[in-house]
């Protein structure tokens, strides 16, 4: 509670006089779930506080292209249609203008980008094919970089700078029109250093195939596979270069390049790609801006949204909307800047700058991240818990709070939080620590329990070996006594089948020992085991953990799992002189299930206490369970049909083909049915509407 009061106090101190209460756009974010990212409701992180149109700014704007805020908070806007640069102070009063009335050498022609460093103003003067440099204080012309000095550039190279950034060490990074090789790095004098971070294009397997098959002319018509130019560039205090690419077919639309051009962007399971769900096309990133704590903001021009990610590539929040008539909505947003706690968006469509102010919620989030980075886990935990109170839909906060707890060595609490946040790996690590702690605390008991279990198993094995020694060699398999109760009889039979499949299946077929009812029972048990496994398997190994269970769906899939092979195998073997009837195949399937029925629940229970390190064991036991069952079935099929091994394998392959055909026919039937229904529906609709 103390922290909360502190936060509120802090918020009060920092609060600007903006009066906001309801937001003009619905606030949402994405949370990871088993069906991929899901839209969830969240509190507002940023709210628009002001819309500065050309009228408000007291200037003329027609097609503003870029916005830049320097360290003092001064803002610069370039307009490509008016060939003008406007310099504003931090309160948006006009300081100076560089327009068509400037001296000839200072005059701009289609400027697209602007950047300020150390009192110098750099403008990407695209029309004049140069970088023009001015004094940021008064806009007086200093010099320009017209031509790049570099041997490898070739004679036909035209320098047409679009966007630019200047680093502390004097390098200028330029996104230029037609420079497909990447970002151009040049010195202050215009010496060409090289290209960095070329965009790779991804080529699909299909395209490669076409390229093999098609003629030269046909290929000409296909779009050429060339790297795609960067759209925009930004640089953080560490000198890391953030880039965005508007096209969606590149390997990654957002990059964080270190000075040598390697992409060091970290992405989690949910990629940095803006909206995961969209109506028509994916988010189209046009600008990027670094924020506090290694966060960065990306501007999507399709839906007019700003996405904020943390250093780890987790989506923190998003805000803004497309539209024309409400504050905080855009028609053609083109540039994004951060200034202290403000986020500024320049809309080319309405020629206006929208100022977004931070809310208490996002402020708390920033603080929690800062303390987290500083290693103050206890404070940070308090803050993350406070965030969770304000936003129960924020899985990242669970993870972070969990990690704080992990660092504070509260393993169980950490596990609980990781499970809530869906962080498998971290959960596994916390579980490992927790297990270690439990083991060392109860070492005596654990050893005792192990001894009892091992001893018990050993005893059973010895007894069995002795018993077997007494039996005659001829009659090794179990022969049911008709007097025995049904359940006992058939379980014993299935158990014996596990070890003597050949004899037992032969008996089932030719001595009529098998029972349809028992087989049905085993299949039903298998169904129960599937559900048990789905629900009880440890969080780490269970992709369905915590998701809704649809009993009908599960039942359907089990039914198909058995019905399809049954029908297809029966149809194939009937044609191929199989001796077995459908009933026999059904019995084989049922009685073969016992290994799965025994092992899978065991794995499910034990997996609760296992970590990712033991994943291999879990997989092995799973493999044994299913493999054993499958093997029994194959042997069973061979026996009941009285096939040779070769024929068995052939029929099994044919069974697969038959199953595929059945599936295909079913699908065809359903899709035809759907077509017909759609047809009838549209006819009916047309009749109703036209008459």
């Amino acid at each position, binding site marked *: 509670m103390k922290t909360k009061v502190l936060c509120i106090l802090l918020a*009060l101190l920092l609060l600007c006089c903006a009066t906001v209460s309801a937001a003009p756009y619905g606030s949402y974010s994405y949370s990871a779930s088993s069906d991929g990212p899901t839209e969830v409701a969240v509190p*507002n992180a940023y709210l628009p506080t002001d819309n500065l*149109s050309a009228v408000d700014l007291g200037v003329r704007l027609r097609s503003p292209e870029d916005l830049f805020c320097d360290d003092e908070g001064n803002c610069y806007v370039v307009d490509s249609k008016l060939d003008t640069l406007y310099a504003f102070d931090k309160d948006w009063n006009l300081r100076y203008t560089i327009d068509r009335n400037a001296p000839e050498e200072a005059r701009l022609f289609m400027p697209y980008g602007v950047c300020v460093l150390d009192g110098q103003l750099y403008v990407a003067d695209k029309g004049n094919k140069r970088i023009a440099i001015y004094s940021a204080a008064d806009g007086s012309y200093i010099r320009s970089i017209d031509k790049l000095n570099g041997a490898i550039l070739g004679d036909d190279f035209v320098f047409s700078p679009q966007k630019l950034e200047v680093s502390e060490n004097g390098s200028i990074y330029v996104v230029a029109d037609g420079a497909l090789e990447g970002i151009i790095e040049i010195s202050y004098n215009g010496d060409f250093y090289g290209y960095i971070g070329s965009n790779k294009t991804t080529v699909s397997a299909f395209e490669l195939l076409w390229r093999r098959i098609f003629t030269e002319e046909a290929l000409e018509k296909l779009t050429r596979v060339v790297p795609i130019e960067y759209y925009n560039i930004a640089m953080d205090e560490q000198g890391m270069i953030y880039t965005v690419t508007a096209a969606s077919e590149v390997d990654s639309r957002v990059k964080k390049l270190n000075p040598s051009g390697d992409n060091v962007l970290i992405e989690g399971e949910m990629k940095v790609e803006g909206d995961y769900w969209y109506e028509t096309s994916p988010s189209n990133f046009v600008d990027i801006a670094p924020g506090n704590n290694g966060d960065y903001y990306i501007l999507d021009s399709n839906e007019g949204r700003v996405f904020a990610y943390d250093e780890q590539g987790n989506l923190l929040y998003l805000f803004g909307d497309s539209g024309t*008539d409400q504050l905080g909505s855009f028609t053609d947003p083109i540039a994004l800047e951060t200034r202290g706690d403000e986020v500024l968006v320049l809309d080319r469509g309405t020629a206006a700058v929208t100022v977004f102010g931070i809310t208490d919620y996002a402020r708390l989030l920033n603080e929690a991240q800062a303390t987290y980075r500083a290693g103050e886990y206890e404070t940070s935990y308090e803050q993350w818990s406070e965030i969770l*109170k304000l*936003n129960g839909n924020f899985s990242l906060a669970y993870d972070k709070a969990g990690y704080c707890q992990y660092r504070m060595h509260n393993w169980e609490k950490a596990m609980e939080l990781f499970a809530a946040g869906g962080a498998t790996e971290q959960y596994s690590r916390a579980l490992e620590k927790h297990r270690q702690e439990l083991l060392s605390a109860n070492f005596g008991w654990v050893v005792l329990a192990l001894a009892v279990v091992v001893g018990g198993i050993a005893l059973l094995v010895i007894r069995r070996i002795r018993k077997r020694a007494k039996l005659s060699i001829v009659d090794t398999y179990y022969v049911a006594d008709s007097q025995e109760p049904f359940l006992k009889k058939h379980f014993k039979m299935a158990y014996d089948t596990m070890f003597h499949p050949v004899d037992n299946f032969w008996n089932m077929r030719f001595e009529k020992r098998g029972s349809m009812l028992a087989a049905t029972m085993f299949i039903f048990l298998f169904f129960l085991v599937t*559900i*048990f496994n789905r629900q009880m398997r440890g969080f780490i190994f269970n992709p369905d953990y915590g998701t809704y269970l649809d009993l009908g769906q599960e039942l359907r899939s089990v039914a198909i799992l058995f019905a399809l092979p049954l029908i297809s195998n029966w149809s194939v073997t009937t044609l191929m002189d199989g001796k077995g009837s459908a009933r026999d195949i059904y019995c084989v399937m049922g009685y073969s299930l016992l290994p799965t029925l025994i092992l899978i629940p065991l794995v499910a229970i034990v997996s609760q206490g296992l970590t990712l390190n033991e994943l291999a064991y879990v997989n092995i036991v799973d493999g044994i369970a299913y493999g054993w069952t499958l093997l029994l079935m194959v042997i069973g099929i061979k026996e009941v049909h009285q096939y040779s091994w070769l024929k068995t394998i052939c029929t099994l392959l044919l069974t697969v083909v038959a199953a595929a055909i059945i599936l295909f026919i079913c699908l065809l039937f359903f899709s035809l049915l759907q077509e017909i229904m759609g047809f009838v529906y549209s006819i009916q*609709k047309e009749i109703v509407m036209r008459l």
Partner: protein
Amino acid sequence: MKNFLRTAAVLLSLVCVLSGCAPAFTQIESPDNATALLPLGEEIQLGSEAMEIAKNDRFTMSVDPAFLNIRVTDRLNGRVWSTNQEDPDMDSVALYETIDLLKAQLQLDYYDKNGNWGTMNSYTDCVANGQYTLHAIKNGVAVTYSLGNLSRTVDDVPQKMTGKRFEEKLLSKLTEEEQNQLKEYYNYYEEEDMWSLLKTGRNNFQDILALMDKAGYTPEDLEEDNRIFGLSVSSTSRIGFVVRVYYYLTEKGLTVEIPAEAVEYSEDYLPYDITFLPNFGSQKPSDENQKGFLFLPDGSGALMRFDSNISSSYYYEAPVYGWDEVVSLRSNTRNVSAEATSLPAFGISDGTAGFVAYIADGAANAKITASRAGRNSDQYTVSPIFSLINMDYVTLNGSTSASKTPVFQQDPYTGSFKVEYLILNECDSYVDMAAAFRGHLEANGILKKLETAAADIPFYLETVGGAYGPKSFLGMAYTGVVSTTSYEENITIAEALSEKGVKNLQLRLLGWCNDGYYPDYFGKVKLIGALGGSSGFAKLTEWCEQQGVTLFPDAHLLSGGDGNGFKKDYSARTLDSRYVEGVERMSQSLDMPLYSSWVYSPEHLLTLAESFLDSYDRFGLKNLSLADNGSRLYSDYNDTLSRSYDRAETQRYVEQQNALLTETMDQIMVEKGYLYALSGVDHVVHTATDHSWFLAEDEAVPFLQIVLHGRVSLGSEPINLAADYEEQLLRCAEYGVYPNYQLCYVSTTRLNETDYSENYTACYLDWVDTAADSWTRLNAVLSSVQTATIADHQQLTADVYCTTYDNGVRVYVNYGDAVAEVDGVSVPAYSFCMKKGG
């Protein structure tokens, strides 16, 4: 044929108007509710000068013949309010056709049968050609506008005729000279025995028309000829409309009315909407009216100030009573997050005088639009747009192609469109407008002043009982209703609040029956076992009775899920016969509903309410909260019903349902509180306390609160869900709105596993302290003004607002981060305080 006759009738009446023959108007049927309409008196002939038409104790009305500009003079201050600006030709913004729009009293948009849009206005298509008549009525004038081009065109000339008919219908009746003249325009093709119109004929169709008239060739003959050759018959139908507008003076100002049924049209051209008096009282910004503003009913109310320099490219347009889900979902997805318009009012002030307009009839079919000076003209304007015949497109999908067919509302609105302009001789603030509006509603018996109130302000608490989510039984998971606040857990939450000092708790139960939040059909009430069943519910009701907590179980009587006896027949349908998707929650990324519900047909509403009351009776509860009745209005175009219902029709049925419920129940609570739903209602929660942040608007004002405070008890949107809850609290203090929280017993995480994941901060443990604290703070300033009227609301400094009540209490709210000293009161930073007396 019927089509043609109707067209012919319209044509005939148009022609009669032209020739000034009055009896033609006996054909206009008077609308059913003609009681409100005044009988027509004598026809008035205008001279060349403006003519005084009516006069009462305060106002004088005159008509200017130039473009039928109607002026109302307020003799208290000599101010003239006019339907049009005085000199449109000198407008610095409008050009050519748009100047005509400034001279018009109404603009009519229409669609033809193929869905092509067209527009006409009362100047270009009527007054400019003299196609109008005026009749005296009591205190005013009825103007009949006949819109449309009445002169005949080349389409009225037969394109092709058989030799026999050409001879019979034309040649035989003409002199030889005339016959030769006619033959010059037609060519005879012997093979087909056909006369065909030549290009020379096309160019001289006036001559042919004269000859046709002489020969007595009738429109029926033309249709016959066109039929013989399979020519398009649509050329015989003409675009024309007759609209009659009643202008009359009342004690408070001017009332203007269009009986919708008296709007005449042909079946081929259907009137879509009417922009009505687009320029009434329009203001050109100047030095004198710098303090002027437009008032818009967006959310709690919003202003467009004349002295702000917001770009004129932004304009305002919003429907009254929210968007129609039946029409808007596909064709209008904009502004899902905009505030709804609860009061059908708008106004203009020039800083000293002004008016507030009240849409008394047909508000549910109206939109309100406003423009800044510089958009359509050099003036600030605000006006209503009334929808007459709704239209939508059906997409018919073939295997390879798709085509769009327009569909139209079957039964047009039969009521009237009535706007009452309450003219205020002193109006320097929206407070004056709100006061006049409130007074008018009270005089009409729509609002009633509260006489008594409890000692403390109410604390509204919404608890989420249950929702569908994952559950487990014996280790087996399944989906079912998860209890998020069981009946008895409500008691725990309530006790936690009362321990912190909260009194006068109004407990609203959401998701308490019929399978929880997003409930099933409410034909009968089924308590939820998981929440404690009937014994748990009995304990809750008993406890509430003992502790004086008012219990408001929430009922969905306009929309809901299926199940529990729901039949698809109950559902409303769109123009293209689809069932309506009532949007419960919108996906932000996909622009489609995440959750939708069935929306019930108006015909079904009473039956549902009766059957619900029968079932609800067993709890012995006398209070009820209604989820939709005050916040949802839609149309129903189900063509299997006897008729279609537009929103104004639906409104009547909702009112009936409300009447039944308010009769049976002691206290009723609604959301948002659309004006028509307020009669008999005691509590309105989710009251708007902000505008929609339209760029065209300058600021939000508490118009809604000034009108309603002291008439019904107003609760806020859930404060825990506000974008900034501290700020929302200040807004509550400023606007005189009581606190409302939406909480549940379980953790937010647990709640969010269910279908209802919209509340991202719900756990009561996280909020009890803050909530109790906010109630205590608000109670300190608002408890003494519960029955009072807001007399004034002012912005004192950039951050400090003051609300004055008529019992002398002043509430100061400081949004700034420093202590403010105003009126000898020191208002703490980011807080509020009150002062009594003086």
